[in-house]
């Protein structure tokens, strides 16, 4: 929002500026956008079915490929969670399950959902599909490497899934993979399982790096004319910042995976202290298990924001479009995203309060952790203020957004509990922690994903998803998710420990058993409700009503492509030229309640548009 147009808050052109008198035609000066710096991108168009749909270089197809692969792993993760809940709620029905199985399911559920589902879905799926469209590029800057990125991810998923079928099964060390027990005999999957997990993670990091470079450079170096950074939709800001985090955080995961692989395969002792086993000294000695925790959480905490920041960005756009109101405090939102991203590198050890590190460390990390609440709270206020007096359309997309705000605030507040060392120590490793992070980085981002699917499906497939089914999907998921995670806070307070296969004869056995049954039933229902979406998608593809171009009357560039769904190259012969931010909704004086980003200033001279 520069000061080019004087000091008035809103811009109202003088007729003398705009008209050139004699002909009555519009003076082109206020519409001036300087010529292109970068020239046309060279595109390689596919020549065969395989090049078009399999080894495809089009970011949109790659995005859909990422999406489908991530959803497949997500369904696997969902089934694993069902099995876990079956054991916890109804152990008499889960006779086929041993404690080893349970630990393996816990581990794989966690790793799949965090890395292979949410990260891949937000950055690989939405990132690939939306970035070029939203910044007005024809494709990612390096489409070939982008294609390799997906196939590397695909191989990583294949390796991960293969670990279910190797002798000993997948690793059961917990998704944090803490040494030394991770690679020692006695832990489920300490043979092939952990090895495949580490290989798969390394492949994922390599594949992600290829994609992440593309997302960053496309945003930084390949925007269309007029698209300044501060005119980008917040979706792009969220995905961009998350990608930066990933590029700087995944190295720590890669290094810890390599070191642990060597500990496993070559009997090095990077993470392995001297260990006595049944009176016998193992060959390991002199390593530092805490070092792994530091490396892992230097990756692990930014990872939370790698999932959360794209969700923040996307939900801002969805709320703005469906409340027909500009996003409140756009600049504040951008800086909050960037600030949260930067801070997320200084909080990792709040996952390690009980690891035995120096208490002053805990003090430092508690402080930084609580500081993150400030920009986060600003974002929540801004979402609510965007809704305030908006022309809210209570459709399925908006429902998911509202659901996100509620669950996110809920999970965020329990985060303040856990960020304080003295409160965290007794709550550590209880169900309170499970409730917290599922609420804040499981359910909340998932709500955004669902909203985004209903919002952008007309763009991807050209058909409108069924609203009625969508509402069923939302209400069952929303109420069900609360039925699952709300009681878990209570379980945590009474001290029920997480990752326990069963409670044996502990006092929890009697006090928590009814609640565990209730949670399990809710989990079965919520999980099943997700298949409503899959059914909805299949039904819509077969018989759904055709979507008009731009069905939500949004402003951002992805709705102004030459065809719907967009073809390779996105924008036909001419790239769009951008004159404003994507949030000019309900502008006083405008004919419609939205002004697309491509509308020239001379077309809206009598309206009170924001200066962007």
């Amino acid at each position, binding site marked *: 929002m520069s000061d080019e147009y004087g000091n008035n808050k809103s811009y109202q052109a003088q007729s003398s500026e705009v008209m050139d008198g004699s002909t009555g035609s519009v003076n082109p000066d206020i519409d001036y956008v300087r010529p292109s*710096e*970068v020239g046309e991108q060279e595109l390689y168009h596919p020549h065969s079915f395989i090049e078009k749909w399999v080894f495809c270089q089009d970011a949109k197809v790659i995005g859909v490929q990422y999406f489908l692969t991530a959803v497949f792993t997500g369904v696997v993760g969902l089934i694993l969670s069902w099995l876990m809940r079956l054991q916890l709620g109804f152990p008499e029905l889960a006779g086929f399950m041993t404690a080893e199985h349970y630990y393996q399911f816990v581990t794989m559920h966690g790793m799949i959902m965090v890395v292979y589902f949410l990260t891949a879905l937000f950055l690989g799926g939405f990132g690939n599909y939306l970035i070029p469209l939203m910044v007005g590029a024809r494709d990612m800057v390096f489409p070939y490497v982008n294609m390799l990125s997906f196939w590397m991810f695909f191989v990583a998923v294949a390796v991960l899934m293969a670990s279910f079928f190797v002798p000993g099964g997948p690793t059961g060390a917990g998704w944090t993979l803490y040494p030394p027990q991770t690679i020692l005999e006695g832990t489920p999957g300490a043979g092939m399982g952990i090895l495949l997990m580490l290989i798969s993670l390394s492949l994922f990091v390599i594949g992600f790096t290829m994609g992440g470079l*593309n997302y960053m450079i496309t945003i930084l*170096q390949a*925007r269309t*004319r007029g698209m300044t950074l501060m005119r980008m939709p917040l979706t792009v800001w969220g995905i961009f910042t998350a990608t930066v985090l990933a590029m700087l955080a995944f190295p720590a995961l890669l290094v810890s995976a390599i070191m642990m692989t*060597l500990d496993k395969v070559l009997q090095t002792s*990077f993470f392995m202290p001297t260990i006595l086993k049944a009176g016998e000294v193992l060959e390991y000695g002199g390593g530092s298990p805490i070092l792994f925790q530091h490396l892992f959480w230097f990756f692990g905490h930014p990872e939370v924001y790698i999932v959360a920041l794209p969700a923040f960005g996307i939900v801002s756009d969805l709320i703005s479009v469906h409340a027909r109101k500009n996003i409140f405090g756009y600049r504040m939102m951008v800086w909050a995203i960037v600030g949260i991203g930067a801070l997320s590198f200084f909080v990792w050890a709040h996952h390690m309060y009980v690891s035995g590190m120096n208490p002053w460390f805990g003090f430092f990390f508690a402080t930084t952790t609580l500081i993150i609440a400030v920009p986060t709270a600003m974002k929540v206020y801004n979402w609510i203020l965007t809704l305030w007096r908006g022309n809210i359309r209570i459709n399925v997309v908006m429902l998911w957004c509202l659901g996100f705000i509620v669950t996110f605030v809920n999970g965020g507040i329990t985060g303040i509990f856990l960020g304080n060392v003295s409160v965290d120590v007794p709550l550590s490793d209880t169900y309170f922690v499970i409730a917290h992070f599922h609420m804040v980085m499981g359910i909340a981002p998932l709500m955004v994903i669902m909203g985004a699917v209903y919002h952008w499906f007309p763009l991807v497939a050209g058909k409108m998803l069924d609203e009625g089914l969508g509402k069923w999907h939302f209400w069952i998921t929303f109420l069900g998710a609360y039925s699952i995670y709300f009681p878990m806070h209570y379980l945590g307070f009474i001290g029920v420990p997480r990752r326990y296969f069963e409670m044996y004869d502990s006092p929890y056995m009697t006090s928590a058993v009814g609640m565990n049954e209730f949670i399990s039933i809710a989990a079965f229902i919520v999980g099943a409700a997700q298949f409503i979406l899959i059914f909805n998608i299949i039904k819509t593809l077969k018989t759904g009503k055709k979507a008009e171009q731009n069905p939500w009357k949004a402003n951002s560039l992805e709705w102004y492509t030459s065809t719907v769904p967009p073809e390779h190259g996105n924008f036909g012969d001419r790239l769009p030229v951008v004159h404003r931010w994507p949030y000019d909704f309900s502008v006083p004086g405008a004919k419609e309640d939205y002004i697309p980003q491509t509308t020239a200033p001379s077309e809206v001279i009598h309206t009170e548009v924001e200066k962007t």
Partner: protein
Amino acid sequence: MSEPKIDGFELKPGFKGMASDTASDQTMFKGVHWGKAMMWIFLLSDTFVFSCFLISYMKGRGSTPVEWPNPSEVFALEAFGVPVPLLLIALMTFVLITSSGTMAIAVKYGYEKNRKMCGWLLLATALGGLTFVGMQAYEWSKLIHEGVRPWENPFGAAQFGSFFFMITGFHGFHVSIGVIFLFIYTYKVFAGHYEKGKKGWFTKLKGDYVEIEILGLYWHFVDLVWVFIFAFFYLW
């Protein structure tokens, strides 16, 4: 390289220039090829990889209870019957830094469209890198003959061997990748692919001499990392 000129945009120097570039449309790094920006970002990420390795090494060296071997004894080389500390490492470092120099001149000749000189210098760089990898293989085999293994070490802490083989191996892997690409680009330059506008084998995109500079960035980075490994592993 001459200063880039952007139509309708004033390029200002210094911090103000950075601010105005950032606030402008289309590109953040004005006049910079996307591939070059991409390589810089990749190198930033790779810096984090090597930092994690080196910090882990410091932590591992600090926490092992067994004494750390003296690098000037372990890495000594017999020359004329006298053990000279770090002789081989000094030679390796010299070769690698020299190859950085030839790389830089190759970039210059590339931008001047001097195909022959660019090609020869790329070849010299590749051979320098190959020599480095060869000397590293010699050093590895020497240490292995003396009984150093990733899991044990006759001179002291076992972690010495673990970190040595892991970090120099990871760096050597980077050098090897660089050497492969240097040979490929030597061929491309000598064959005149850029002049003919020949499309890449895989990417199907037309190339440009800027690719030589991008490769150069990678090569200088690999050298720079070696300087840090040298300082932390051999001099400490």
